[in-house]
């Protein structure tokens, strides 16, 4: 008989996927802040 508190394989995989997505989003945010800082320090724009 299975333990009702046991997380299913599918749920565990989904949770892992969500956690990886959050980690990537946080990493992207750090990179974004870095890129913005560099761009703001030496920005000379191009008019299209």
């Amino acid at each position, binding site marked *: 008989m299975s333990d009702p508190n046991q997380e*299913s394989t*599918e*749920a565990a995989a*989904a949770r892992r*996927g*969500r956690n*990886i*997505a959050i980690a990537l989003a946080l990493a992207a*945010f750090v990179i*974004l802040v870095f*890129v*913005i800082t*560099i*761009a*703001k320090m030496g*920005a*000379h*724009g*191009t*008019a*299209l």
Partner: protein
Amino acid sequence: MTQPSAAASLAAPAVARWQDFVRLLKPRVMSLVVFTAFTGLICARAPMDPVLMAVAVLCIAVGAGGSAALNMAYDADIDFVMRRTRARPVPSGVVRAADALALGITLSLFSVGVMAVAINVLAAALLAFTIVFYALVYTVWLKRRTPQNIVIGGLAGALPPAVGWAAASGNAPLNAWLLVAIIFLWTPPHFWALSLYTSGDYAKAGVPMMPVVKGAASTRRQILVYSVVLVLVALAPGFTGLGGLLYLGVAALGGLLFVGLSVRLALSRAGDTPPPHDGLYDVKASARPARDLFAYSILYLFSLFAALLIERFAAFGGVNL
């Protein structure tokens, strides 16, 4: 916020994958928002660092996604009733409404905050106004109360070019608001044409779309009026220095076809009989003029903004169109 009929589905989430949270952001709507905002940004003709340009577009995209998640969190009960929307993550029970709300608030704050810090305050303020207008004024206040819901609420979908323009130049002149006016006037004929052949679902969900409240004949007449005004306003950028000959040609020829399809719809019986219930997009022959106008309206708006973009890029390359 949630009716008893949808409560069971909303309270018992299945396994939510990260892709379900992406679906909350309405990626297809987001792509149209990005396209129109990018057009506004380029048409501003202001010097801008390409990296900051990309950041501005990212902020607008994320802001659009955040407001879409807020909309889905609030509208779960009526989305549950309508066939077009019942498979969305919240009404289908995959994502909790509270989680969608949290995601929407987070992304909205992120987009406005980054826009204010990295770009400028005017663009951030316009973006914040757009999000609040869509999530509160349209979704919470207008959508379930008045047949003018998409007319007034359409302002939220119309503002991205002004946000893009403000991001590039720090101001929003008349030409930016002309682009806003074009999308604003385009919204009623676009959505009313759709609602003429899906009004059964709106009625079932208690959403007072124009065909549900005023009837199909009145809706068809109003579509025609809005179409004529839209086509005239869409010509204006050709005379204000915003658009060139290519734009004017697209606006004139595309506008003629738009009015032609609206006249055809006004003379038709589209929406007079209830749409079939066997398939959401099974359109009766009598409703085809509505379906045709709906489909063409997307191409028309895309063509107008694409013409402006092509002209700007051609000018950048030394070619005047």
